[in-house]
């Protein structure tokens, strides 16, 4: 809806003068958000994801039903809130999405490149139709799987593992990346997420070092973003923040992305997962 957004901006700027009734604005935005809760299109993705988990795919025509998300092969219930975590078979800390890449490679016989292709569904935003997005309205197996797997942890407490040295290392790397400022805008994650009660335009910004904020923020991804008409994953959330920070592209399922997610998951520890959510 880029066109719409631009139009909206121009129009809002031209609205006739009236007192800056900021409280009313925020109240109405809150009402808007509540009115959206009634029907969440994320359900459509969850249904596809469940089917994709069970369907034979890839050169081996195998399903993902033997995929180990950390709680043992095939255990999906509660797996999402325990990620990221260290996996001995890959000797890596992995989040859900990088773990699904592993399973698609080992169980289904895809190459890593194939498994990482189209990690996010087509945005419908014309500027973003090139890789890694898959074009307007195009489906993403990864996104659908994420929607379903996350939904199988709905209501559960976020509890990432922190017992392995590599998990602690990932946390530290994530923390230091969080404070890392660079690029032509001097931005870091901390620019927007370091203070309480701030906004970009009308969007509330969670302070990620504040447990309550982090729990709410982390606990509502993945989410259906109405601005894009798509379900968005945690990897996408990182990718998109980093893009807006004017950094080079954060690679999907990269260690830095996993480090950031590990840091945030730890900050959100103890919060309940309320995802897939629906958001602006």
């Amino acid at each position, binding site marked *: 809806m880029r066109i719409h957004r631009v139009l909206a*901006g*121009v129009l*809002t*700027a*031209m*609205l*006739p*003068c*009236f*007192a*800056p009734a*900021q409280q009313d*604005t925020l109240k109405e935005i809150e009402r808007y958000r509540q009115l959206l809760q009634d029907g969440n299109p994320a359900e459509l993705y969850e249904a596809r994801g469940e089917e994709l988990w069970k369907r034979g795919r890839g050169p081996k025509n195998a399903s993902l039903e033997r995929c180990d998300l950390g709680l043992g092969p095939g255990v999906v219930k509660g797996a999402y809130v325990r990620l990221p975590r260290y996996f001995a078979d890959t000797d890596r800390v992995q989040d859900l999405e990088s773990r699904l890449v592993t399973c698609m490679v080992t169980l289904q016989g895809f190459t890593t490149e194939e498994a990482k292709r189209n990690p996010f569904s087509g945005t419908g935003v014309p*500027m*973003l139709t090139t890789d890694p997005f898959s074009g307007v309205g195009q489906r993403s197996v990864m996104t659908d799987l994420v929607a379903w797997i996350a939904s199988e942890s709905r209501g559960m407490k976020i509890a990432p593992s922190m017992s392995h040295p590599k998990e602690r*290392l990932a946390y*530290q*790397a994530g*923390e*230091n*990346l969080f*404070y*890392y*400022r*660079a*690029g*032509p*805008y*001097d*931005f*870091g994650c*901390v*620019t*927007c997420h*370091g*203070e309480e*009660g*701030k*906004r*970009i*335009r*009308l969007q509330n*910004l969670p302070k990620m070092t504040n447990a309550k904020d982090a729990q709410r923020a982390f606990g509502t991804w993945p989410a259906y973003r109405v601005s894009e008409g798509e379900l968005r994953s945690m990897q996408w959330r990182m990718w998109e923040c980093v*893009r*807006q920070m*004017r*950094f*080079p*592209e*954060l*690679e999907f399922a*990269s*260690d*830095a*992305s996993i*480090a950031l997610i590990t840091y945030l998951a730890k900050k959100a520890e103890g919060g309940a997962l309320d995802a897939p959510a629906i958001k602006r």
Partner: protein
Amino acid sequence: MQPKMILALALCGIWVAGCATRPSDSEAERALAEMIKASFKTRGQATIDRLNQDEVQALCSEYKGEPPEGVRQKIEKSQQATLRYPVSGKMMGDWREGQRIAQSGAGRQFTDDPARPAGGSCYNCHQLAPQELSFGTIGPSLYRFGKLRGSSEAIQKYAYGKIYNSEAFSACSNMPRLGHNGVLTEEQITHLVALLLDPESPVNK
């Protein structure tokens, strides 16, 4: 690409002693360097060298945005020296142009057209004209900025300088150094100064 700096930072937390001493080379440091290198890639105008930090970025990262007094002064002093004002001496442009620039948050993302001028992203963080309800609060409200301060040459110079290089006035500010980093042109900044200070600007109505 300068992974050293990221690394030093990434490792700070691991060293119990903190960041006072530079961590020595180690297996872990090399592993982390590899991690950074493998995690970002150039895309369009957002080249990998954007991860290289200048002194200000490095210091602000190291101190998590809250540098001690000495470092703060050092940053502000070094950034004061970068300030460049219009040679013509004219610092006030057209507030209407300023309003357009303030509204636009485009610029320098790999999805932006590099041939098109960047916006100032002002409304993302500041309240300006009261008609715009959708404004951010990371920065202070600038509504009535000029009405409260007038538009003397000193105020014009301050506003211009602050937009040009915020770090010269407030070390580790969240505000981009829009002029110093080449995001906005001299002319664009004069339009923003007018948006802030011109008595006819909606900001001052």
